[in-house]
């Protein structure tokens, strides 16, 4: 899973840093536990302004998860998307 977190001015102001921090924390904690789909891999990328906020106002922070754009992303929303995918093998069994 590839997550791109925008760290442009708007997104940094509206908490991009805390989203990165919580994703990094997931990687170190829950994603190391048993039960995680062995093929699951979390790739966190930080990007310069993706330009979303210039098209539409009040959308920051912007996060892109495997190509899907999340506006006004919150850390809890993104973390749950990650965990749903990471534990996918259990849920589908």
């Amino acid at each position, binding site marked *: 899973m590839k997550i791109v977190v925008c*760290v442009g*001015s708007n997104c940094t102001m*509206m908490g991009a840093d805390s989203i990165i*921090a919580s994703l990094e924390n997931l990687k170190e904690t829950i994603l190391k536990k048993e039960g995680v789909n062995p093929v699951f891999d979390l790739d966190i990328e930080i990007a310069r302004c993706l330009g979303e906020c210039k098209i539409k106002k009040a959308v920051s922070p912007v996060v892109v998860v495997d190509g899907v754009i999340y506006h006004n992303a919150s850390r809890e929303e993104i973390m749950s998307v990650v965990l749903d995918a990471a534990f996918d093998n259990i849920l589908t069994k």
Partner: protein
Amino acid sequence: MREFYNDIINIRRMVFAAIARIAYEDEDLKKLGDETYRLIPGEKAHYRENVFRERAVIGERLRLALGLDARTAAETGPISEGIENVDVDTRVYTPPLVSVIKIACEACAEKTVFVTNNCRKCLAHPCKNVCPKNAITIEKSGAVIDQAKCIKCGRCKTECPYHAIVEYGRPCAASCGVNAIKSDYLGRAEIDDSKCVACGNCIQECPFGAISDKSEIFQLIKAITSGKEVYAIIAPSFVGQFGALTTPEQVFDGIRELGIKDVVEVGLGADLTTLNEAKEFVETVPEKDPFMGTSCCYSWKLMVEKNFPEINDYISESSTPMVYTSHHIKKNHPDSKVVFIGPCISKKLEALQDHVKDYVDFVITFEELMGMFVAKEIEPAEIEVDGKIKYASVTGRGYAVGGGVAQAVKERIHEINPDMDVKVECIEGLAECVKIMRLAKLGMKNGLLLEGMACKNGCIGGPGTVVSAARARKSVATFSKESPYKSPADNDNINPEDMPK
């Protein structure tokens, strides 16, 4: 920055960006009311019980960001009331710096021991048995504490096998290291200005976002747009604050794009503070003074001044990095204005002091600067820059992190006198600072170099920071190593006549 308080932090920052935009676009301040609708659109409440209160609170925040005083519900008139007084291009605000937004305060109980519905009404009821005031009765609903009798000893809480009894107080008051938060007649928080040292802890800790300081971004931007020559001096903790991909050089260029003439690292002044404090320590401790406290954190300095006047003389007489750096600028550009940009709000108070006010014209925080970047749609990470900034030494840059000041001074003392063994103690957090000074007063810290920081983690943990202290720590360490000057004495930006003799 309080890491998990996202909504409150975002509201605060949106307000800074809004005020910066209004200032840059030269909008009529009489229309400030419209801004509350722009910031809180629609009719659904997101943060509080209704959208009207949300707008009222954000209106008060906008006023504070303009430098006006906080108002109570009784005083709340039109949002633009008194606005002509702040529509200027010079510093206007007056103390108090930190105030409670009364209409946002939820009047949390001062301290309460409370039975939750975890109570199983058990036969043993150890809570009742241990209560030294016989304040607990077991009723149909479960244990009930007679609040009039309860002395908040917390014994019942410890004994309950179901963890049914909780003790809670006010987060604002609990976070205050100097007990400056009391209650008004409606039970809302009230700050005792004679005790407050403006560390900003309560601003960060209030879960309702009901405490705020005043800002002077509006007047700063007016000074810039009216054509004044404004120089910025930026605190060592700035590294990594403005986007994970933004380099320190890009921050400097971004600031210039705001209309500011030039930027200098406050690390330059930090080097002077190091040189002066090291000299002072070698000359005074222990012969003249039993110990020496560092002087760069203004909240710490103010706390000692207010609470420990008898040992106040043992705080270093050296000036703060902000003051030295502003002197450096004003010496070369006497007609310019200087804005200090930092993680700290108590610097806003320091800048009002008689010996400082002519040198530092404005003080803003990193959050407020971020608001200016957003208002001007500046993306520092996309600016192409040449070269490196080099205003400060390795240890000058290290001032940003708790322990950095003492480390710098210690290393410098070692350069002056390699045989002198300096013992240091670094204290982070205002409450801890108070404890240590109590011991110091009793003579238990003699011979030491005491570094006091009102914020946990030092400046990178300040109330005006944008990113978490853990991330800032890494960025500061990397940038510090990049400095070409190993010792503050090597810093050739310092005018030779300013070096301590």
